[in-house]
């Protein structure tokens, strides 16, 4: 299901990528920005949202993020280029990351990577010809007791024997786990929502004072205890 990427590729060939946020995602972006004391703090979540919508971090997407948080597009790119998860080019539907760091290495992580390269016919860092799988040699992913392990679009698969891994590759190729693993770019499928009437106190740091409850409670409750 590389629908979104095919679409943007077609449009790239036609010379007109317009990959700003959809109206729904723009509303969501504004909601995310409102949760931070300063809009700029939302850059990373919003770049993830661009990837979720377009599969990778597009120029237009970054420009839109910049507009929304009130910085320049270069500042957004400056931040985003630091982080490995932001892809500046199209990826496969699946990004398959195989850990080869210490705990996985001693239990066959490098062999798993070699197996994937051989079976997929590509080197790590590249994408299969059918656009389904991008292979990555990744760093520790915090599943060390499940070594050797891999992630598919940041979903965990651990304790992989050779046959387990082959089965996983088969399922990735056939689309059998498309329902379990959303396309690349989608992280959490549950989002935080703070109901308007439940917001306690979010605002720029400059206008903040000591919370009333804190001052009052400290004055009233600490007194009988003495200096302690």
């Amino acid at each position, binding site marked *: 299901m590389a629908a979104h990427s095919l679409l943007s590729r077609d449009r790239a060939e036609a010379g007109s990528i317009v990959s700003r946020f959809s109206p729904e995602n723009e509303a969501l972006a504004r909601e995310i920005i409102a949760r931070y004391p300063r809009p700029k*703090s939302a850059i990373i979540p919003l770049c993830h949202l661009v990837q979720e919508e377009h599969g990778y971090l597009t120029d237009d997407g970054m420009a839109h993020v910049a507009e929304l948080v009130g910085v320049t597009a270069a500042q957004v790119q400056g931040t985003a280029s630091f982080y490995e998860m932001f892809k500046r080019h199209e990826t496969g539907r699946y990004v398959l990351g195989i850990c080869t*760091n210490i705990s996985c290495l001693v239990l066959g992580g490098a062999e798993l990577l070699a197996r994937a390269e051989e079976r997929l016919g590509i080197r790590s860092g590249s994408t299969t010809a059918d656009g389904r799988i991008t292979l990555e040699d990744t760093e520790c992913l915090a599943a060390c007791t*499940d070594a050797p392990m891999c992630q598919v679009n940041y979903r965990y698969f651990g304790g992989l024997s050779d046959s*387990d891994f082959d089965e996983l590759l088969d399922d990735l190729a056939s689309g059998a786990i498309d329902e379990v693993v959303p396309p690349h770019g989608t992280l959490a499928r549950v989002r935080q929502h703070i109901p308007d009437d439940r917001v306690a106190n979010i605002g720029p740091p400059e206008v903040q*004072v000591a919370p009333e409850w804190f*001052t009052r409670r400290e004055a009233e409750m600490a007194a009988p205890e003495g200096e302690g």
Partner: protein
Amino acid sequence: MGYRDHHSVFGAAEGTPLVVSSRFGAPDGHTLDGYKASGSYDGYQALDRVLGMAPSKVVATVRDASLLGRGGAGFPAGVKWGFMPPDVQPRYIVVNGDESEPGTYKDRLLMERDPHQLIEGCLIAAYAVGASQVFLYVRGEMAHAQERIAAALNEAYAAGLVGRNIAGTDFSVDIVMAWGAGAYIVGEETALIESLEGERGMPRLKPPYFPAAKGLYMAPTIVNNVETLSNLPWLFNHGVEEYLKTGTEASPGTRLIALSGHVNRPGVYEIPQGTTTFEDLFYGDDYGQGIRDGNELKMFIPGGGSAPWFYPEQVGMALEGKVVGGAGSMLGSGAVVVMDDTTDAVAACLRLVRFYARESCGKCTPCREGTTWLERILRRIIDGHGRPEDLGLLESVGDNISPGPYPTPPGRPRGSRRSPSRPSRPRSARWARRRWRRSPRRCVASDRSSMPTSPTRRRIRSRGRR
């Protein structure tokens, strides 16, 4: 058995109080109902207790319990909270859930399987220091943890446990989930703050040494690890006295240890601090159940990829921060990686050095350039093109990145070193080298061009082992 049937192993020895891992096995432990129903106390009861105390009393309680930070440095949380300058507002709490030290796997479990315990911990910390907002920063690659935390926060907001007028009182604080995008160095607290401000995740110049004075948006900020905060509900439900009954005087309570590598039963285990030895951990029935295939232990990493390695003569040592630190390594983030005698020490060392070369944030030249040098030198040794002067060169490059001994002797100024993890980079190389001097020499001397990069499938007995 297919790839879908794998489950992470976790557990504890009989009699160990489950301070943080009591709901790991509960299928609905991550929901509000599951959290309230399980354990010996109802969920969010610790919060009720805390709301009956003065904020300064809460700080004092945490200080009395000597709750040590579980992120790596082992700094007492109560003392850290006390560093906040009085009458400076706003104050923020930042939860460090950017677990990415090689070998470490515990915060992800806590976030995925018990998010409400963490949220309750956040509320207690926010109450204690008078924070106006809490940011829960989850590592970017942990999609499932992000889902669980978001769902739990939504539930907690809806139930009136987070946000305005918490539990019907005047206590009000927002908890916002933030998430990263893949950068190891963001686990360093000032880098995490930079990332949270929408910047490149590079550590800040020091001093100021503590974000408690100047942190997020230059306001007083407490950065605590996920496991540290997850201890708080149990601590306030059971009291300091009960908390101090487990572990040792210097390091009370329990710790989550991720035991990985060549043991028969790798897993995440909650152990009493300071009373369990590495030997218990590797060979005990409740834990590792021995080295795989009956092999001999060759070496182990006691506290994550940055920690100097230990060898068989240290297995009798207790897992206690001060003890391990005194022996020249660190317990760090509770990541123990076991390597048996089939492991190629040089290849393992190269992989860690490559990690630091890849993940160097690039701010300081000695680390940015030096780690790449270390990687290149080790690579050529492994490829069979090592030169006799390479060992000295490794030493010299390492000293340029992190001069002097590690750990830094007490009283020695920390200088303006930007990243406290900077010494990590050459450390594994230096320690491996010190111990394995003979082994890399052999590599240098003989033609090893056919050596595979992975140590796993090699069955060459290391004659260099002492």
